[in-house]
């Protein structure tokens, strides 16, 4: 099966434009667009160079090493992998129910990660597009441009992120490669000094997060013709929700709604994810295309992440974020928002939720408890699911009698969003690129749509000289007609 603009007829008669790699997203991504002589768009694809070595990297290791080593899969969200692996291995060590101290320390770590990740994404990766415009001067459209033009906004972004990093340092033991979460619990709790150190800034973070929500709402209000329409599409959505239907990033059961908001399934134990979800393959992409098995590949694809989560839940358990969620939901007038740029609005509501939750947790003395680990009857298989900054993250392990991992399966957030991102860029291509001479600014529209999902494409290496952005225009025979390159130390 094929979706609109996925596969062109007579593709050998068309020109090919490639955006490779997509900039300001993690890892390597490539967009190819096939155009005819009149610049009409016939095919758009987001290709993801997904690294399929995860399983090999993990297999054969002792299970207790896994929560630490999986952090090295991704330089952007190591804490998500750390915690998803820990949750899966909690099941393996017979510790489905943690002590209050262990669960709250992990929650604090996770909400700190959400806060810093969302702050980085909005203030430093997306705000250049949103504040300056998609077709603004390319040399200004980056974080340094934001720091220069909007120093106050940029500084708050830096300090929000720094605060989140401090939470990770204190709960995980180190800023990078922390060891705080272990199968069955945590290996340290907070001292009173740790708690007081974080608490002194916690209220300021709530205040700045509120301002960030107001900023994105203001941008939305100023240009509804853009924000309501850009990359808009209908899709199912999936996320974890708490038992009462509330938003919860750390734990819950799976829920999915359709594009009209109707429940598809609810409160499904994620230990059964394999029966619920399937993964389609396409010959042109290394990354799989997950879908809800019962609905089939054509109708069962879905989106995850902030816009899915905020609309999939029934409420947010903190007052300020809940009020903001109500406003977002009301904006949809009874139908879930499908506009890609609404991801930013939802993301800032989530950042506010994270800041409020952190502040509340820091008033909970359980964080300083000393009952850290539980264990029970060991199992040979465990599944852990967490709502990572970019969406639902699934870790699934089997462990042999020798305690070595025999099977690992990871479904990362970006894989869940694979079809949704492809649909989003096709909508953008149809609306903004069709029939026009391509410019860097127009091509950036495609990247803006991808960036809204904050994809973490391959957790790739970043070494100097490894990641230029290159746009190549080729004819049907593959001859290079034009080339535009952006490199880290200069303009295009």
């Amino acid at each position, binding site marked *: 099966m094929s979706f609109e603009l996925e596969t062109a007829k007579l593709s050998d008669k068309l020109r090919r434009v490639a955006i490779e790699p997509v900039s300001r997203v993690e890892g390597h991504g490539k967009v190819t667009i096939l155009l005819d002589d009149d610049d009409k768009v016939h095919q758009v694809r987001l290709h993801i160079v997904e690294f399929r070595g995860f399983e090999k990297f993990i297999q054969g290791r002792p299970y207790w090493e896994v929560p630490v080593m999986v952090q090295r899969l991704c330089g952007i969200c190591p804490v998500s992998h750390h915690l998803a692996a820990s949750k899966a291995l909690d099941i393996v060590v017979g510790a489905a129910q943690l002590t209050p101290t262990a669960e709250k320390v992990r929650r604090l770590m996770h909400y700190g990660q959400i806060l810093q990740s969302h702050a*980085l994404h909005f203030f430093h990766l997306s705000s250049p597009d949103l504040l300056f415009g998609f077709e603004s001067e390319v040399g200004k459209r980056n*974080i340094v441009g934001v720091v220069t033009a909007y120093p106050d906004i940029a500084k708050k972004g830096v300090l929000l992120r*720094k605060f989140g990093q401090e939470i990770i340092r204190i709960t995980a033991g180190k800023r990078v490669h922390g060891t705080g979460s272990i199968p069955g619990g945590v290996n340290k709790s907070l001292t009173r000094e740790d708690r007081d150190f974080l608490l002194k800034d916690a209220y300021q973070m709530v205040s700045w997060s509120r301002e960030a929500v107001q900023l994105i709402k203001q941008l939305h209000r100023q240009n509804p013709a853009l924000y309501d329409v850009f990359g808009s599409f209908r899709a199912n959505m999936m996320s974890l929700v708490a038992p009462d239907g509330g938003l919860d990033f750390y734990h819950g059961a799976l829920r999915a709604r359709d594009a009209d908001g109707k429940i598809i399934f609810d409160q499904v134990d994620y230990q059964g994810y394999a029966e619920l979800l399937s993964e389609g393959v396409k010959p042109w992409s290394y990354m799989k295309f997950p879908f809800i098995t019962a609905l089939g590949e054509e109708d069962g694809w879905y989106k995850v992440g902030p816009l899915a989560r905020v609309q999939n839940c029934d409420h947010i358990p903190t007052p300020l974020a809940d009020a903001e969620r109500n406003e977002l939901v009301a904006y949809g007038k009874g139908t879930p928002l499908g506009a890609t740029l609404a991801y930013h609005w939802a993301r800032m509501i989530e950042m506010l939720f994270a800041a409020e939750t952190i502040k509340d947790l820091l008033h909970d003395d359980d964080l300083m408890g000393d009952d850290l680990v539980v264990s029970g009857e060991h199992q040979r298989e465990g599944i852990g699911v967490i709502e990572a900054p970019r969406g639902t993250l699934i870790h699934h392990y089997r462990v042999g009698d020798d305690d070595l991992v025999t099977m690992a399966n990871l479904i990362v957030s970006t894989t869940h969003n694979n079809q949704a991102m492809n649909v989003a860029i096709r909508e953008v291509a149809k609306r903004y690129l069709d029939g026009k001479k391509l410019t860097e600014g127009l091509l950036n529209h495609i990247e803006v749509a991808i960036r809204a999902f904050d994809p973490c494409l391959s957790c790739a290496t970043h070494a*100097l000289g490894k990641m230029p952005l290159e746009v190549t225009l080729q004819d049907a025979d593959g001859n290079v007609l034009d080339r535009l390159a952006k490199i*880290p130390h200069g303009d295009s």
Partner: protein
Amino acid sequence: MSGSTLVFGWGNPSRGDDALGPVFVERMQHLESTHPEWGRLDFQTDFQLQVEHALDMRGHSRVLFVDASATCPAPFSLLALSPAKDASFTTHAMTPQALLHAYTELEKESPPPAWLLAIRGERFELGDALSPAAEQHLQAALAWVDNWLTSGIR
């Protein structure tokens, strides 16, 4: 030199030669106690350079950034850095030049003098160990930094 030197290595320790930055820092930390002539040092590592690292430069008299490079001449190259409003169109990661510029804007003062030590790497796949060539380049870089810290050569 008064004040401390910040040595900041970045890269993913599990991606082959991408580990050169963090491993360089690790080796220096191991050697530090036997080299009092190096002066006061602070160390930091991370997967990538991020904007909040601008704040980590506060209070240091100079900064040595260390990263793997797929393109520099072997065994390593040294570049004196200036703040630059470059595009940094490289995913979530920033360049050290852009980081220095962010420092200037955030702190309203010039950043400490900074250099980039780029060590040549050859392979960058997940699960790879440091390649033999990268290990040789690393040894050369460590010999250089000993001289650099001891003599103050820039």
